[in-house]
């Protein structure tokens, strides 16, 4: 599968990355390299091997269901660009 620069632009848009034409070309070259690597790996026979979902062979540790956090709104909001009535203010989003 070959990657087009349109694919790169689409991924950039989804990741909300503003990229110049030069950056897109550089990313295209790098990503094509990664795709090549994946193609090499896909040649390996993995029949009967359980897919890995994490690099560490461990199970998730669980926490007891208890409230441990206290209200630190004032502290957290002291570094927010804009707050009002306890809310974080952000540019309006119209979907």
């Amino acid at each position, binding site marked *: 599968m070959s990657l087009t620069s349109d694919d790169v632009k689409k991924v950039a848009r*989804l990741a*909300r990355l503003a990229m110049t034409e030069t950056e897109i070309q550089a990313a295209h070259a790098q990503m094509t390299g990664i795709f090549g690597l994946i193609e090499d790996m896909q040649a390996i026979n993995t029949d009967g091997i359980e897919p890995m*979902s*994490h*690099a*560490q062979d*461990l*199970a*998730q*540790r*669980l*926490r*007891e*269901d*208890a*409230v*441990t*956090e206290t*209200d*630190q*709104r004032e502290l*957290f*909001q002291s570094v927010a660009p*804009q707050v*009002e*009535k*306890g*809310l*974080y*203010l*952000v*540019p*309006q*989003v119209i*979907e």
Partner: protein
Amino acid sequence: MWRTSISWRPTGINARHRGFEMTWEIVIGLEVHAQLSTNSKIFCGASTAFGAEPNTQADAVSLALPGVLPVLNKGAVERAIKFGLATGAHIAPKSVFARKNYFYPDLPKGYQISQMDLPVVGKGTLTIQVPAVGKLPAYEKVVGLTRAHLEEDAGKSLHEDFHGMTGIDLNRAGTPLLEIVSEPDMRSAAEAIAYAKTLHTLVQWIGICDGNMQEGSFRCDVNVSVRKPGAPFGTRREIKNLNSFKFMQQAIDYEVQWQIDTLENGGKIQQATVLFNPDTGETRTMRTKEDAHDYRYFPDPDLLPLEISEAWKNEIRATMPELPQTKQQRYVAEMGLSAYDASLLTSSKAMADFFEAAATGADAKQCANWIIGEVSAQLNRDSLDIDKCPISPQQLNGMLKRIADGTISNSGAKEVFRTMWAEGGEADAIIEAKGLKQVSDTGALEKIVDEIIAANADKVAEYRSGKDKLFGFFVGLAMKASKGKANPAQMNDILKKKLLE
């Protein structure tokens, strides 16, 4: 052709659509987000209590401050396991959390932690009782569950005007949700609502969700399509975020009608997400497939696979209450109730507890009739739930025993019931005070009948010459003479016998 489809049932649609009646089959599947009733959030120790001041329950993890990591809440997993056990579902020994990527201000990480390829709960089933519609009787149906997975909720955006800006409250961000996905097995709005109600009952019954629909604890997305019976599935449209059963009914009715009209007029259905507007009763398109999100799911490297052992499952299984479905089967098999009545009596745990307490040592069928009839009607009139019923199950039980042993007639029982509801008191005391004890003394009843026969010789002659209809006339006189206290069955027997002498 549709007649061969046993799953077909009419909906309100057909009545309004005579011309195309019964030529379309409705196909519905549901996705329900049940908020799990944990104290703390799914990946951090912030509180999940409803109604707090904005952002006072938004800790560093909820805000996605740099460097924080999620730690999974055992209580959320336990609730997912309970759901799996209650629906006879496959519970994955190993499941994986994935990132669902999209940008929105109420999702500060830029992704929602959810599950994709390996959900915690796999295929299961839910048995529903669909109520009677018109002349069609109530029936039972088994709906397939595709999966149920754990995920975190997003925050809330407040679009009121903050100087042209949007206010963000992240208290809800990170609240644990179980997304329960059904197969497209439902064939009418009635079935979809029966399914949603059964699920709503179940999650509260097993104590995993408070079921509060106003507060958004139980939110339904409904996938609707129509097709000619036997044809492949039509293109579906998804109605988002329905938070009442009434709106669900209206939204499905409108959406089905809209799809049928569109197809009948030669149009095509485009896959889309739509919103229901309760004010207009209409659905409108929110986004179509072309601008649907591309979520780019991938396993979350911050979380290891979730492992659930047989031992843990068994430990939880031992704490599970008798399920509504099991109770229903028991009520049908052991007490001789109809499946539909049994489903009404298990519509909540409080209802089932009330019924079982009231039916102890009494006629279960009669008890069921009283609860489904008088008790429910009176609760409705007074806008009360069963757990606020002014008559205790023990009071009702006392009355049922007096009906069973012949102390009071049905009409006497109604009087006892009204008095208990309004003034309280035990059945025996009310029967005594109001003189409601029915007369079952054969001698006394015979005396009344003899007097009536003597005083109405002409009518007796007519009756004896074949005017059977007059029997009611004699019953009326006899009941009146006994001041309504005569045991009706006994009185009938005596009348019949004496009139023929």
